[in-house]
């Protein structure tokens, strides 16, 4: 029942998102644009600009929410999130290298592959660290280091580009944007993201068993190595491919699972689908909000998610201060 309500909400917001944009078209024209002759300006605006943007926002948000929920369940750490642990940052670096080197012009798949490689590298790094019984603090500090390094290398790569526009594009990669994305980006990123969701969904049983501790999970027949591999691979696919076409959008994977956890009785395996839907909703809502900014260039979507997410993060740190001492 809840899933039906959530899906209805997602669909309703998707429809709303088709109504919002710089051209300010009335709903009747939007409807004609969706259904009528494809040459009308309204048809081009709705089909070629707003629809791919909406689909990407939903898919990227779903991946972030899902990956956040899986990482938090796996590491039993409420602060594990693709942005904070450096997955998004390294994914952006991988995509930057693939794009500005010109590789993605010769071979279009190089772009999502670059993002996925970067994301996989960060996810492996996190698991290696966490594997040695790292504390919450260690994980976060490692994330700070990975993020700083990824940000610096991204800035370096863009500074070294012989293209004078490259340097202005650092905000896109660090803060993310869905502005003027097109179908090409959907076709590049959606298939790997969808595979990523499926892989992440296979961790359900493992995450449920893991709440009892690693030893009990093993005795229940859970292959922890495989579970971790699925988490890394799924995160790399779901987050890396999205970052490659829209930059790094932070905090979605932190806020959404945290808000929804009480609703599912704190069972990590029950959190996956709600987190995916919640992530899709939050990201699309944020993207609708940035479309309303202006005049002047649109606000980057990551600015908005950070404005929501960072105070949230601080609040979580304050609440748990005692436990982490």
């Amino acid at each position, binding site marked *: 029942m809840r899933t039906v309500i959530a899906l209805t909400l997602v669909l309703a917001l998707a429809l709303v998102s088709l109504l919002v944009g710089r*051209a300010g*078209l009335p709903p009747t024209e939007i409807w004609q644009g969706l259904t009528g002759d494809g040459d009308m*300006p309204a048809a081009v605006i709705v089909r070629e600009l707003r629809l791919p943007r909406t689909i990407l926002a939903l898919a990227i948000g779903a991946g972030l929410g899902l990956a956040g929920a899986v990482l938090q369940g796996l590491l039993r750490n409420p602060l594990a999130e693709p942005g904070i642990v450096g997955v998004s940052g390294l994914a952006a670096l991988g995509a930057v290298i693939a794009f500005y080197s010109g590789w993605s012009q010769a071979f279009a798949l190089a772009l999502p592959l670059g993002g996925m490689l970067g994301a996989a590298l960060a996810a492996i790094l996190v698991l290696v660290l966490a594997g040695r019984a790292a504390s919450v603090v260690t994980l976060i500090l490692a994330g700070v280091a990975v993020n700083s390094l990824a940000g610096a290398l991204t800035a370096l790569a863009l500074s070294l580009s*012989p*293209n004078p*526009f*490259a340097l202005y594009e650092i905000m896109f990669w660090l803060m993310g944007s869905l502005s003027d994305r097109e179908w090409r980006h959907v076709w590049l990123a959606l298939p790997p993201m969808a595979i990523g969701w499926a892989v992440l969904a296979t961790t359900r049983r493992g995450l449920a068993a893991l709440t009892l501790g690693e030893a009990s999970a093993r005795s229940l027949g859970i292959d922890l190595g495989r579970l971790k591999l699925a988490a890394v691979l799924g995160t790399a696919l779901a987050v890396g491919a999205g970052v490659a076409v829209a930059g790094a959008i932070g905090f979605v994977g932190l806020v959404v699972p945290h808000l929804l956890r009480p609703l599912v009785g704190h069972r990590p395996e029950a959190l996956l689908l709600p987190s995916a839907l919640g992530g899709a909703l939050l990201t699309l809502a944020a993207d609708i909000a940035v479309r309303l900014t202006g005049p*002047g260039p649109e606000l980057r979507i990551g600015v908005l998610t950070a404005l929501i997410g960072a105070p949230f993060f601080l609040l979580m740190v304050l609440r748990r201060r005692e436990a982490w001492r």
Partner: protein
Amino acid sequence: MRWLAGIAFALAASFAAEARPARVVSINLCTDQLAVLLAHPNQLLSVSWLARDRALSPVHDRLAGIAINHAQVEDVLPLRPDLVLAGRFAARQTQAVLARLGFRVIALDIPTSLDQALAAVESVGRALDNFPAAEALVHDLRARLAALPPLPPDPPLAAVLEPRGVTVGPGTLFDDVLRRAGYSNLAARLGLGAYGELPLEIVIKHRPAALIVTAGERPVPSLAEAALAHGALSGMRRIEVPSALTGCGGPFSVDLAERLARARS
């Protein structure tokens, strides 16, 4: 230190007032182009690094024997120029320091019309003591402008889209070129300023008869340039003009006007 600069200034000023400048350095892409066209042999010692970029500079292949500077004071000093050409709003710190050290610096304004662009040709010609050549060039350019096809009674609507989603509005040289070439500028219709932001949705909504995009030959891509090839724009009539023709005012602005007028008919 101050007296030394004072002497240097006096010396430079006295030379400049009398003789043809023999050691000219240009530190701005736009003065680079005019200086390359108008300098006497061996008069121009150095131009800015941007003059080499084929995407920005129509004179990129005419720089043999001319050194490259990065518009830094330390690039300019060893050349001991007796004239430094600069842009009014670029490398201002460099200009200020050079002027304080007694170098003769001439800063050119950004032309906002074809007339001003032609006047810039003349003022660089005058500064290089080559006014006759500049005058002849301007005469020729005026003749070419006069030979442009007559303006249509109902000029077609054109949208100019540059990388980063920027367009050119009233009060820019490009806008003047566009009007002389027989177009009506969407940015002007929308009431945008000189360099306004033009979102793709707005371009599509107004159905311009032509979409004018500036394209540069670059070794590697950027998102800003990739966005100009957005699928949503594919249904529009597209006129690509080399970005090297649009950056600066001068003879190349007349080339731009001719290209645009030809593309219209």
